[in-house]
């Protein structure tokens, strides 16, 4: 089942998209863990230059697996892309290491933040530039550039990352990735476990980075509402398949999306239980 919700697309955007190849193209990939567990069953998606694309879906849908396939971090978790291909800037990534991709400008910010707890906030940021050979002065400059986006981190620069708040850790993780000077970020659930105002603060910064640094973003989120507010385009993943995709605005207005992912329907808010049984029925029929 694949409901297409691409309504009257803006002409000029379509023409432009055709002229410029996507930064990232995932073509029909299948991913298997431990040689037996099939998790992705033919996922395709594209991220155009300079856009924010959201990858939405519930627990275990395969969002993180998709991001790790792209960054090739999957290999260290005994996962493998067994079919399809992934191209970053027109180059296939399957033979590359995460480090090589970082060098090419593709950095993943992993789910759960993964700060270096025993390093200070600033040391965390500095490690982001590890693979670049830059001098002290330039390093200082880059740090200031990051602090301009994350003023909170400047205040907390000498605290151990392990002792900073969840929101600050998320900022450290994103800031650290930006220190690699990427042209594309893969963000895995930046909203996870954070209060709504902090989520909003972080997403505002992400949008800022997207607009001012021109970094393209693929964003995996369970928080459909927030993600669609900041994204240009969205894909909805369920059980390892893309069920739906379209411009973020159209998705946010879509009846099924409202019902299943935004917890609303024409009769107003539905209870979680109704939703679940309905989903179950729908899947098994």
């Amino acid at each position: 089942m694949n409901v297409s919700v691409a309504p009257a697309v803006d002409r000029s955007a379509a023409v432009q998209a055709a002229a410029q190849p996507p930064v990232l193209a995932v073509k029909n990939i299948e991913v298997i863990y431990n040689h037996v567990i099939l998790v992705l069953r033919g996922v395709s998606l594209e991220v155009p230059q300079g856009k924010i694309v959201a990858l939405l879906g519930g627990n275990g849908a395969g969002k993180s697996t998709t991001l790790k396939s792209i960054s090739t971090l999957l290999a260290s978790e005994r996962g493998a892309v067994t079919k399809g291909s992934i191209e970053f800037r027109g180059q296939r990534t399957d033979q590359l290491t995460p480090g090589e991709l970082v060098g090419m400008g593709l950095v993943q910010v992993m789910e759960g933040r993964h700060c270096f707890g025993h390093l200070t906030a600033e040391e965390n940021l500095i490690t982001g530039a590890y693979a670049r050979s830059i001098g002290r002065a330039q390093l200082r400059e880059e740090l200031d550039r990051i602090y301009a986006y994350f003023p909170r981190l400047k205040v907390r620069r000498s605290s151990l990352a392990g002792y900073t708040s969840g929101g600050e850790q998320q900022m450290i993780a994103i800031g650290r990735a930006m220190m690699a000077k990427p042209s594309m970020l893969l963000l895995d659930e930046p909203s996870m476990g954070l209060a709504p105002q902090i989520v909003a603060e972080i997403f505002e910064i992400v949008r800022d980075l997207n607009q001012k640094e021109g970094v393209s973003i693929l964003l995996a989120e369970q928080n459909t509402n927030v993600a669609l507010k900041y994204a240009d385009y969205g894909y909805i993943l369920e059980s390892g398949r893309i069920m739906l995709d379209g411009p973020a605005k159209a998705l946010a207005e879509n009846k099924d999306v409202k019902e299943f992912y935004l917890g609303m329907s024409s009769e107003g808010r539905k209870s979680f239980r109704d939703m679940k049984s309905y989903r179950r029925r729908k899947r098994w029929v």
Partner: protein
Amino acid sequence: MPDFWFFLEVLVGGLLSGTMYALVALGFVLIYKASSVFNFAQGAMVFFAVLSFVGFMELGLPFWAALPVTVGLMILVGMGTERFVLRPLVNQSEDTLLMATIGLAFVIEGVAQLAWGVDVRRLDLGIRDEPINWVMDKTGMLVSQLDVTAALVAGIMVAALALLFSHTKVGRGLRAVADDHAAALSIGIPLKHIWMLVWATAGVVALVAGMLWGARSGVQFALVWVALKALPVLIIGGFTSVPGVILAGLIVGAIEKIGEVFIGPYVGGGIEGWSPYMLAVLFLLIRPEGLFGEKIIRRV
């Protein structure tokens, strides 16, 4: 001589020999932190290192030439181990890696004896295992020159490593890898370089530990068992804590000497051999993560 001075003498002697336990344990911790490998071969590396050093001297190299040559050799052994034994096993379980290092221990011990023979050698560093005179005159305590020198060398080694970790780029990278492998990988820190560095460093630490132990008790196969003394030190200090194992080394050294001298006579001696293990078992029961070790968290 008042009892106090005698107690102090025993304590100091224990603490000084404890620094050497700490040094052996430090080699373990470095590797364990950076790559989650429990390097069973650390003891074998200690033996191999000092045996090679003595071997080079027997071949006619003077001390100051044999030292850098052996340092170079140990760097090669460390890096080679990482490259040819552990890297092919990357992503295997910790148990598999432990098995690999157990095998490696036998290989290193075998190669060492094959290359240099099985005789017990003496290693003369020009420092006597005799009491320092002015300490004896002032306080009546017998404090061995060799022990003091060994403790100083161990202290300098630890300080140098601490500086390396806190103030250099690779040091920062190493701490990052130790904290979170996956995150380090995700931002492009070259794990392989870091692992090589760690193994090379562990090789050099093994050499220093081997020379200090060898000067004291002869260069012989029994040095391999010194590494077994490092096990209680590791348990008490915590497998991931450098300050923890240093403190634990001192504690183990002090406990075994004090136990031997003051409690030993009542129970028929032999305390030196088992008291560290007793203490380690106590720690396992009460504080399994060790003094400063992190709570054991399995990373996904």
